[in-house]
């Protein structure tokens, strides 16, 4: 998507939430990162941002931009150029931060309605996204597809460093059984009313396939 949108002169920004870095991924830090990416794609830094930067230098030791200021700057800059905001793993954001971030994104959307937001996360945050973003969006369930799994398996097999343990028969077996098993697991795990967890059953190999 970045390739496609970027090729059309749009600005594509992205942010990845991470459990391991939760504490440091504050709303101001996260949205400041998006703003930095937008500004980085502009010919010149907007004068309002330059002024804000100068103003803060008057404060002892300076200070970072406040969330409200960042939102305002993002509203302005996103209105200047078509902007895509991509956010990965929203569920890995601290819950109280998530509220502030979604509300901030909503404010940006209100002022710059052409801004597109692409967000990924686990199912339990779907309702929160819908609520905080005022029903502006759609939800799309992501499931592994057979041809994707096969592509992935080919890549992993090509990169296998234990080539002595692999032969054509084993390779064919892997390429046949794993995609089949994964598809069956997903049918089971996504069937309404089916007993058990909605989390896909995973074996060790699949864990290594889909988790990095």
């Amino acid at each position, binding site marked *: *998507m970045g*390739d*496609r*949108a970027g090729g059309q002169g*749009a600005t594509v920004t*992205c*942010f*990845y939430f991470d459990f391991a870095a939760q504490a*440091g*991924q504050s709303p101001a830090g*996260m949205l*400041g*990162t998006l*703003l*930095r990416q937008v*500004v980085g794609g502009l010919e010149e*830094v907007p*004068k309002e*941002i*330059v002024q804000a*930067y100068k103003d*803060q230098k008057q404060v002892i030791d300076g200070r*970072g931009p406040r969330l409200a200021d*960042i939102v305002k700057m993002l509203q302005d800059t996103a209105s200047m150029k*078509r902007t*895509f905001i991509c956010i*990965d*793993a929203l569920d890995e954001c601290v819950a109280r931060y998530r509220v502030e971030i979604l509300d901030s994104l909503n404010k940006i*959307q209100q002022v710059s*309605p*052409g*801004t*597109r*937001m*692409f*967000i*990924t*996360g*686990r*199912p339990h945050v*779907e309702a929160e*996204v*819908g609520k905080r*973003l005022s029903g*502006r*969006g*759609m*939800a*799309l*369930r*992501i*499931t592994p597809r057979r041809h*994707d799994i096969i*592509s992935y398996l080919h890549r992993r097999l090509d990169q296998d460093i234990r080539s002595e343990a692999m032969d054509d028969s084993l390779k064919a077996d892997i390429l046949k059984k794993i995609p089949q098993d994964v598809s069956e697991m997903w049918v089971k795990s996504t069937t309404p009313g089916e007993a058990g967890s909605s989390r*896909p059953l*995973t074996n060790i190999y699949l*864990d290594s396939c*889909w*988790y*990095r």
Partner: protein
Amino acid sequence: MFAGDIFCCVGKNTVHRILRLLGLVREFAVGWYVWFWQGYASDTEKRGCEPGCYKTTVGENDWAAMRCPRGSTNTPLFFSSQRLPQPTTFITRFPPSFRTVKMSHQNINSFNNTNSLNNTNSFNVSDSYNRVLNNCTVVDDRPQILAWLSLLEPRLRHKDILDGRIDNVGKWVLETEEFKSWYAGSGGSGSDNAVLFCYGDPGVGKTFIRYRG
């Protein structure tokens, strides 16, 4: 580097930027910082900086600098120089096209004569006191402002993910009506379908969706 030689460190789009400096593209020049000082290349060091980032210390006897205020009707040339109150360190990020242009003494004229710009590599450096300035570097606050906005570095995570992606894995997502509707709306002013939330259990590949058209 020889004492008395003049060299100029110029950034990306050298010709355009020099034109800015000379006031030929006045409207683009305002708002830029122009720093220049006496000194030598040895003053410039990379230590402690990211790749492409150079740190230079300007001493109290060095010459610096003028700011070209936005909206200024003056050509953003060098003659408002003032002494720095104390040694000051500037950190400048030079783009890949950064290069050094060696100047010749015989070309030293007044900057005020912009018509003397026959060759952008031989523009002349002197100050209003008819003093030759050994070095001049064109920088602005852009890197500092960007760093001020946020110190988080999603680029590292982004690179990891790019390295792990496989072409066309997740292509089906981009062919769904939901995605097309969301993407197509990006050119319009309406906010309907402005948000696409892709959800799924851990490990289904949400992060690694990729399509190269």
